[in-house]
Structures are given as structure tokens and as C-alpha cells.
């Protein structure tokens, strides 16, 4: 096998960075911080994933998408491991991921517990509509200036 076709951990990370989150396709599973480890042994790749919320239905889809993406790159042996400790935190979301979320209209998580500003008009005059939203990881907020509702990525 020529050297440049060998699988490296860096290549696997780059491939996984192209795998969109099934619920929020604007960010990748790497941006989301659910990929916790990549190991390469010869041609065999082991990817360790951590769930965002314990009941998140997207986890099954993410596992399948990771396997499919690696198979497309010619990896024939893929093992997906699930790890729950330490528990996933929004601190693991990449800066690139946060910026992409905001551009998409979802306010990124803030340690203060609420969105910093409206992702549509940047006003800081915002109010909570509900602690839960369209997926386990989001809450519903509304902007009091532009009056648009928006999703806020819960900070955990």
C-alpha cells in the first residue's frame, strides 16, 4: 500500500469533521464534541462517541453516519464505542461550531444559562419561551426587538 493512502488519526478526524449532525446539519459531529476518541490500528478504526443527552434519538443516526462516512473513505473495519463518562458538556463544542450555530439562527450555549443575543438581529433584549425545544439539546427563546422566536442551545 502506498504511504499516502494509509489511514491516520488526523485523516479520520478530518473525515468525521465532514459528518453533519443529523438534527442540526450545519455543524459536524466533531464540532458538537461527541467524538471523544479515534484510534487507528492498521486498517481498523475505532471511534469513541459520547451521547449528548442519554435519550437523544440522534445517537443511533450519528453512529450509522460515522460508519458510512468511513466506509466511503475505504475503511473496511470500523468499531463504534459509546462512552458516558465524563458526561458530555457544551464546553466541548468547538468555536467554529458555535459560530456556525449562530449563523444558522441557533443561539450558542452560554455559561450564564441563557443566550447572549438574538441570532437574527443581535439584540440582547430576549426572553425565554420554554426550557425545552425541538430537540433535547435546545430551548425556545424569543427576541423582544425583532419579535422572532429562536432556538437556544442549552448549556450543560
Amino acid at each position, binding site marked *: 500500500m502506498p504511504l499516502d493512502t494509509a489511514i491516520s488519526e488526523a485523516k479520520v478526524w478530518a473525515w468525521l469533521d465532514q459528518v453533519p449532525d443529523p438534527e442540526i446539519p450545519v455543524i459536524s459531529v466533531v464540532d458538537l464534541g461527541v467524538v471523544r476518541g479515534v484510534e487507528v490500528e492498521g486498517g481498523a478504526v475505532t471511534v469513541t462517541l459520547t451521547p449528548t443527552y442519554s*435519550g437523544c434519538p440522534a445517537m443511533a443516526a450519528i453512529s450509522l453516519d460515522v460508519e458510512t462516512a468511513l466506509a466511503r473513505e475505504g475503511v473496511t473495519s470500523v468499531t463504534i464505542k459509546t462512552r458516558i*463518562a465524563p*458526561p458530555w458538556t457544551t464546553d466541548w463544542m468547538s468555536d467554529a461550531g458555535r459560530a456556525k450555530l449562530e449563523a444558522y439562527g441557533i443561539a450558542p450555549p452560554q455559561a450564564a444559562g441563557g443566550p447572549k443575543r438574538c441570532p437574527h438581529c443581535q439584540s440582547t433584549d430576549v426572553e425565554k419561551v*420554554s*426550557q425545552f425545544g425541538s430537540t433535547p439539546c435546545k430551548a425556545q427563546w424569543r427576541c423582544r426587538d425583532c419579535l422572532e422566536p429562536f432556538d437556544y442551545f442549552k448549556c450543560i
Partner: protein
Amino acid sequence: MTHLFEFLLRQGDNALVLGHRTSEWCGTAPALEEDIALANTALDLIGQTQLWLGYAAEVEGAGRSANDLAFLRDAYDFRNALMLEVPNEDFGRALMRQFLFDAAQVPWLDALQGSSDSRVAEIAAKSVKEARYHLERSADTVIALGDGTEDSNRRMGAALTYLWPYAGEMFADDSTDRAMREADVAPLPSEIRPAWQSKVEETLGLACLTWPVSDFAHSGGRSGARHTEHLGHMLATMQVLQRSYPGAGW
């Protein structure tokens, strides 16, 4: 049946039974936001169930899976607290129950993070984040409805009166609890009661509701000895697919 297996069934069955009861609101809650909130809460609880019952099945070592434990056991094999299996009745009771459970679950899971059993500690660390979020919402809602209209206050009071005789069971220690305490797997449930009591007192005060007088507590859910008649009906709905088509998968 080992004490650890019994202990894990209690954790898993609490999450499963409350998760199923909560999921019954899907599509019928009083407002869209509440519908979504309840469905998401149920989803968290069912996710926690998979972790607890998955570990229970491993500990049992009898070749059963988390799904087998959830869908192929009958009422007398369930180990959930009675309070979690009684019917929803109305939104007030569902939220009062969620609050009374969350207020116990947060200090309980918090303590379990220091368990001598590393798997228990890991599952607790994952679940406590979700439980804290649930408590924030259920406490807020109990306050909003208790300190709301005359009708909402009356219904929250009725919910509290109905649920109260079931709440005490969560803190009644038995031989399994003592064995887990001895092995440093978990604190005694009674040790969690003061934290629960102070949160409940504070919240009921803000909600203009009165702390019930009686300390009488039903028992029999956590041991499986005496479930209410409601659990069987709930399981008949929850388990019908696996009972009718054994082994059916997605």
C-alpha cells in the same frame, strides 16, 4: 436476586415508569411548549432507563437485555416507587409528581456520583445533569400553577393531597438499601430526605400550598410486593407490541 441487581432495577424502573407516564402527554398536553417539554423529559428518562437496565442486565448475567427487562417483566417484577405509576389525571398532578420526584432525584444522583461502583457513578453523573434541568422546570411550574388562579391553586393542592401518601416510600430504607450502603454503592434513601424536604418546603411555600399534615406512606412498589392496580394497566399498553410479536425489532 443480588442486592446490586435489585438496586439497579429500582433506578431503571423509576426512570422507565415515570418516563412512560410522561410520554402519555405526547400530543395531548395543554400547550405546544408544554407538550414538547414533557416529551423531552420523557426522552431523558427513557435514555436513563437504558443505562440503568442495561447495567442491571449485565449484572444479572442471565442473557437478558435492557429491552427484555423493560418489556417482558410483569407488574410484580417491577421495582419502581408507587408514586410514579399512578395515572397522570391532569397536568397539575403530572407536574407535581415530576417535582416531588426531581427534588429527591437531584440529591440522590448527586450522591451516587461518589459510588464505589464506577458504572453507577458514571450513569449518575450523566443523569444528574438532566435531573437538575428537570427540577428547575418542575419547581417553576409548581410555583406558577400554585400561585396562579383559584382553580390552578385548587388543582395543585388536590394533586399534592393525592400524591403525598406515596411520596414517603422513596425514603423508606430496606435490606437492599442497607446492603448498598454497607458496600458504599449508595447512601440510604432516608439520608436524602432532609435535602428533599427543604426543597419541597421552600417550593410549596412559594406556590402558596400547604405542607400536608400526615406522614403516612404507602409501600410495596420498591420491593415489588404491592403495586397499585394502575401499573398492570400501564404495562398492558407499554408492552403490548413485544407481548404480541415477541422479538419484534425496528
